[in-house]
């Protein structure tokens, strides 16, 4: 251990930071999808992560599904929750201002948290890692196979989203809604369907993040708020609406937290995310990758 020395510790911090950073990035991407289409910041995003983890536990333990099927079932169940949020809550309040809608999502997040507490109780739950076997020791750095799964799942989601937005008609239509909803409607894009789709998509992404981290971190009903907050930090830091920005900012936050815990003091770990967020808001309010001009056009 001593022979591994400084380098091993450094790598270990980096690995831990990237793993948790990937989750922040996924949560941030979830914020961005909805924001792009509706300008709503959906504060229930963190709860989608929590629900993903808990649904996976339910499908795995109570229904006896294999882990991959439980993963997909959980993602589908949470996407359905996103659908309910859009269809029965947001759509009914479509005359309201963006700010009221944001407050509605806060109410919905409290509802989800309370519902999860009633359904699953207050105890944390565990899920086995996707693949068996303990951690691998490599040059003094312990690598959990599940951490690789988290990174893999995040990578796949980012690639798929990129393809979706660049290549598919629906993806392009969604981007068009983001750029200019009125013009999008004029050229025949069903804006309502796009909004609907955006909620389902971001709920599904949140759920995928939740299922992937549950084997590492456990999951319980009130985990969502903090993950949601960190993810929001990443979304703002990267520039609201910027997918690439969210990815970089998420990883940056994760790494900053991990290195702060390692080399400064673990007591200040949570402060790092907030300080970075404040610095960004002071000096570059449109985020690292956002453009000032585009930010000026947004209502929120």
């Amino acid at each position, binding site marked *: *251990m*001593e022979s591994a*020395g400084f380098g*091993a*510790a450094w790598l*270990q*911090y980096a*690995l*831990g*930071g990237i*793993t*948790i950073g990937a*989750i922040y990035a996924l949560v941030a991407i979830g914020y961005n999808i909805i924001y792009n289409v509706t300008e709503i910041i959906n504060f229930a995003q963190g709860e989608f992560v929590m629900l993903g983890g808990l649904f996976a536990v339910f499908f795995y333990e109570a229904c006896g599904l294999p882990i991959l099927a439980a993963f997909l079932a959980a993602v589908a169940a949470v996407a359905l929750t996103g659908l309910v949020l859009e269809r029965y809550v947001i759509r009914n309040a479509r005359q309201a201002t963006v700010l009221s809608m944001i407050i509605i999502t806060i109410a919905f997040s409290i509802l989800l948290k309370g519902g999860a507490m009633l359904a699953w109780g*207050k*105890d*944390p*739950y*565990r899920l086995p890692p996707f693949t068996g076997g*303990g*951690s691998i*020791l490599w040059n003094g750095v*312990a690598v*959990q196979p599940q951490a690789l799964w988290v990174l893999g799942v995040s990578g796949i989601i980012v690639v798929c989203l990129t393809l979706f937005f660049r290549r598919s008609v629906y993806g392009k239509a969604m981007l068009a809604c983001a750029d200019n909803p009125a013009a999008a409607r004029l050229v025949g894009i069903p804006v309502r369907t796009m909004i609907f789709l955006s909620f389902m998509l971001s709920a599904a992404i949140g759920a995928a993040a939740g299922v992937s*981290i549950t084997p*590492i*971190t*456990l999951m*319980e009903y*009130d*985990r969502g*708020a*903090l*993950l949601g907050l960190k993810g929001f930090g990443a979304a703002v830091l990267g520039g609201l609406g910027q997918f690439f920005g969210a990815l970089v900012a998420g990883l940056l936050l994760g790494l900053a*937290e*991990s*290195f702060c*815990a*390692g080399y400064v*003091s*673990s*007591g200040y*770990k*949570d402060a790092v995310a907030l300080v970075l967020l404040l610095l960004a808001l002071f000096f570059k309010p449109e985020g690292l990758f956002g453009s000032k001009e585009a930010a000026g056009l947004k209502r929120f």
Partner: protein
Amino acid sequence: MVGGRLAQCVGRWSRIVLWVCVLALMVPAGVLAGGEPYKIGAVFSVTGGASFLGEPEKRTAEMIVEQVNAQGGINGHPVELILYDDETDATKCNLAVKKLIKRDKVPVIIGPTTSGNSLAVVGLAEDFKIPLISCAASYKIVEPVESRRWVFKVAGSDKHVVGKMYDYMKAKGISRIGIMTVSDGFGASGREELLRLAQEYGITVVADERYGPKDTDLTAQLTKIRESGAQAVVNWSVGPTAVLAVKGWRDLKMEGMPLFQSHGFGSKKYLELSGDAAEGVLLPLARVNVGPLLPDDHPQKKVIMEYKQAYEAKYQEPISSFGGHAWDSMHLALAALKAVGPDPAKIRDFLENTKNFVGQHGIFNFSPQDHNGLSKDDLEMVVVKKGDWALAQ
């Protein structure tokens, strides 16, 4: 006219006299019946954040009252338990204690469940001179003892847990440790004691790490401890982070550096959640958690096994350390009522002079300087073996 008024007057008087006679007849009748109940007030956090503590406490207290009344009460008086739920809220706890004192006029109160709530009501116990037996752990509940004349507590202090742990480390030749504590009240108090007592036991803390109660990843803290040259790791937290510490410790291959947990890890649920990773984890626990492992001649064996059998038969759930606190406070209150009757001042004096009271959490020896009555010898060092507790050698 005058005569009429006089007659009216006499009529009224005779009626009053009649009522007085009736009342006078009723009072001795009540006394003769003998069944005037002895009241015990209780405040537990049955719902809210600390409900996992308050629920077994409530169940234990109710079970004991049932048992005592089935055996004819104390000295011929049935026991009446007046129990309020403070919803883990300090304000509601304060109101509940006021209600117990002013409206229900109880001579003794057991609870509250948490340290925060207990500190919110110690002032009431002092002002109204009603003895209060708290089920929470913070030493501040009973110290400074000059301003806590009416307050007692039955949960051990962190200094006992740390003392037991450090004793064990010394016996195993461990002198350099890394500590990691959660940044809430529980962890902060543990950290304070770990740092304060280290020197006294000849132990050096070479790494002092912290994390939040909702943190999802502790590998950074553990890595830092791994690199610090410590011989052992101490983790001090309750909830999911206690399990994350175990998993992280195993994943980082730190078996060469034994992991000590606080008594906060002392729940079977945490063992289940940690699975195989918990093998070899060490922690000091109160004997109520390890009743079946105790030798038969241990003085606490009998009371613990009796409580365990009765509780598990009645509620179909395992006993917990927290229910044990309710057992201790309830039986102390009952012993006091039996010895001195429902007089708050006499109950206080009785409690303060109680010695060798065999309870679930230890053998209590109270004194005017010590309103807790426990010591580090009331704990056992326990190791996780094949997913269950075993006494550590």
